[in-house]
């Protein structure tokens, strides 16, 4: 994006008189606003889609009242959340309680800086793109633990503790699954990883024809991604039948909305990252953006589909799956992928 701004400054005379710092700051803020607008709309669409898909899977209609087929339901919900009273429990640690939702939201928001929508439609072509996404996604976890602890409620504390246990379990296989891809692309940047894949499905890393190790890595990454976004069957931090609402039990109004949007944004990020890493990103038969969005939304649909089909795992089972099943598998895949990349 920096190159665009430099080109802009070169071509438009007035901009040359303004200090570059102001132009860059303005450009960053503008970029943030665009991304914020985009994710708000995407989160709204996804919340609506989730409720509609859930409805039809459960032999009911889902939202039907607000607007035709309930398409304005998310708008109505947003207005409701905005107008709700903002309560902070007496026992809560006020500062951390208020900081936590922002941190969760920020953790889900910042990966958009490197997520490519197509070859050129990207904010920053960072050379450590996937590393950046993985490390910043971890901020969200701190926010959740903070929310759980600062709420001053036992149920919230359990939610936070569960997430901490879950986090140390899923992040390792997730990172190792990324390494299988990096072994072939030889680069951490999302553009280079995408360029290492072709136009057709058998040229993607998710295809066993390309490499059986990355194909397994795809499954591992997606499962770990489900765990990182707290989706079923890994939604233990907010298991409503056990922990009431888990870490966000005490939150209401806009603060709750931050968690809510943050969760859907994190889902989007994980699905987009999966699409870039394993499904060829913007490569495909259609124009770039269409391919990318199509793949992302398909993966999102699978997440919704799983949520309304599967029961929830128990905490010891989550850790067992992550550390004793996914971790050895992903380790073998990393070694295998490395050997294949060197030898063939």
């Amino acid at each position: 994006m920096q190159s665009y701004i430099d080109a802009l400054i070169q071509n438009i005379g007035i901009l040359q008189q303004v200090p570059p710092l102001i132009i860059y700051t303005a450009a960053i803020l503008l970029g943030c606003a665009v991304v914020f607008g985009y994710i708000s709309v995407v989160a709204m669409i996804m919340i609506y889609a989730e409720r509609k898909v859930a409805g039809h899977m459960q032999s009911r209609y889902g939202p039907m009242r607000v607007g035709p087929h309930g398409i304005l339901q998310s708008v109505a919900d947003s207005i409701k959340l905005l107008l709700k009273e903002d309560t902070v429990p007496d026992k809560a640690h006020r500062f951390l309680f208020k900081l936590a939702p922002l941190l969760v939201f920020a953790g889900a928001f910042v990966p958009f800086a490197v997520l490519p929508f197509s070859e050129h439609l990207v904010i920053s072509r960072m050379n450590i793109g996937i590393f950046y996404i993985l490390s910043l996604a971890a901020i969200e976890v701190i926010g959740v633990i903070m929310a759980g602890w600062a709420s001053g409620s036992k149920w919230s504390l359990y939610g936070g503790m569960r997430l901490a246990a879950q986090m140390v379990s899923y992040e390792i296989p997730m990172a190792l699954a990324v390494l299988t891809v990096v072994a072939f692309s030889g680069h951490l940047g999302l553009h280079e990883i995408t360029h290492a894949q072709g136009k057709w499905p058998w040229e993607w890393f998710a295809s066993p024809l390309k490499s059986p190790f990355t194909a397994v890595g795809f499954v591992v990454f997606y499962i770990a991604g489900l765990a990182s976004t707290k989706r079923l069957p890994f939604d233990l931090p907010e298991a409503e039948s056990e922990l009431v609402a888990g870490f966000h039990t005490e939150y209401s109004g806009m603060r709750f909305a931050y968690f809510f949007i943050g969760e859907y944004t994190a889902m989007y990020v994980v699905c987009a990252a999966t699409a870039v890493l394993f499904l060829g990103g913007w490569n495909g038969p259609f124009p770039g953006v269409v391919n990318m969005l199509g793949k992302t939304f398909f993966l999102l649909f699978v997440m919704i589909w799983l949520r309304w089909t599967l029961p929830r795992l128990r905490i010891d089972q989550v850790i067992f799956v992550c550390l004793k099943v996914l971790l050895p598998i992903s380790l073998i895949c990393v070694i295998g992928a490395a050997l294949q990349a060197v030898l063939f």
Partner: protein
Amino acid sequence: MQDFLQTEEILVNMGPQHPSTHGVLRLVIRTDGEMVRETYTHIGYLHRCAEKIGENLTYKQFVPYTDRLDYLASINNNLGFCLAVENLAQIEVPERAAYLRVMGAEMNRIASHLVSYGTLGMEAGAFTPFFYGFREREQLVAIIEKMCGARLTYHYARLGGVMRDITPEIARDTREFVRTMEQRWEEYNTLLSFNEIFIKRTANVGIIPRDMAIGYGLTGPCLRGSGVEWDLRKDDPYSLYERFAFTVPYGDGRMGTVGDSWDRYWVRMVEIKESLKIITQVLDGLPEGPIMGKVPRVLKLPVGEAYMRVENPRGELGFYLVSDGGTKPYRLRIRGPSFCNLSIMNALGRECLVADVVMILGSIDVVLGEVDR
């Protein structure tokens, strides 16, 4: 260092306002991290003095109150009380009425087990089984509504017979329901029963060994889940149950250990199928005749006592009736299956995980209306 880094046990109040305590049960759990060290059950939030009310109402007046005991199995409750009174008053019930009572009771058993199926799924985190269960329950409740006009508190079995005869339309609807339910039953198993995660969550969780089940006085699916073949419909038949052919399912530890939560769940699922068989047999062999026996307008029971028990969806529901010769019972005592089944909760809810407590409670399947009465 040890003084600085210490861990603490937390006492958590689960309920009475909690999504998975089936109403207003309060569990106090002493937890060490995710491990539950002890569970204490507190009941009484829904106490409505049902037994005392019974002593101040005439026999006929009390029948609708039995609807409110186990509100998911109203017809079974009506049946139990009516049988106790009829037993003491020597009232003859026409054959057709007895058949219709069996049909109503079995329909109610299916409706109750469908709720249990849905809520257990929901407690495991699967939301969809709940809607599947309620879809079929809705069809069933619509039929019962045609039979007696109510959707929850049916008051279908009355002293001396049943409230209303069934019409050909109801018979046709019921047969159609039996057909639908048999297909959907397979769908249920694909969705939940044989789901790997669900089996992982329920198998080897909350194991009740045979001796323990008998020792705690468990009845119904909880007892049969532990491998004990005991069903009052077979072992102490009432209301002409001996005429119908059905098998009594019991737990065999297929997915883990005998008496685990999956076994209790599976007993309920198979019971749905068996109840469908009974309903078909009732419809095929329904005798002609009146639906109401001769019941005096003012019912006075002879001095004496009677105890009548029926197999409710949750177990053995007993009514102990003492009459002093008046129009009201001198003493009415209700033995609720949920109450006795819940008594095992304290013993099961220890040295397990928080998530297990929820699953154990769901697999015991209590209705608080009956626990507190």
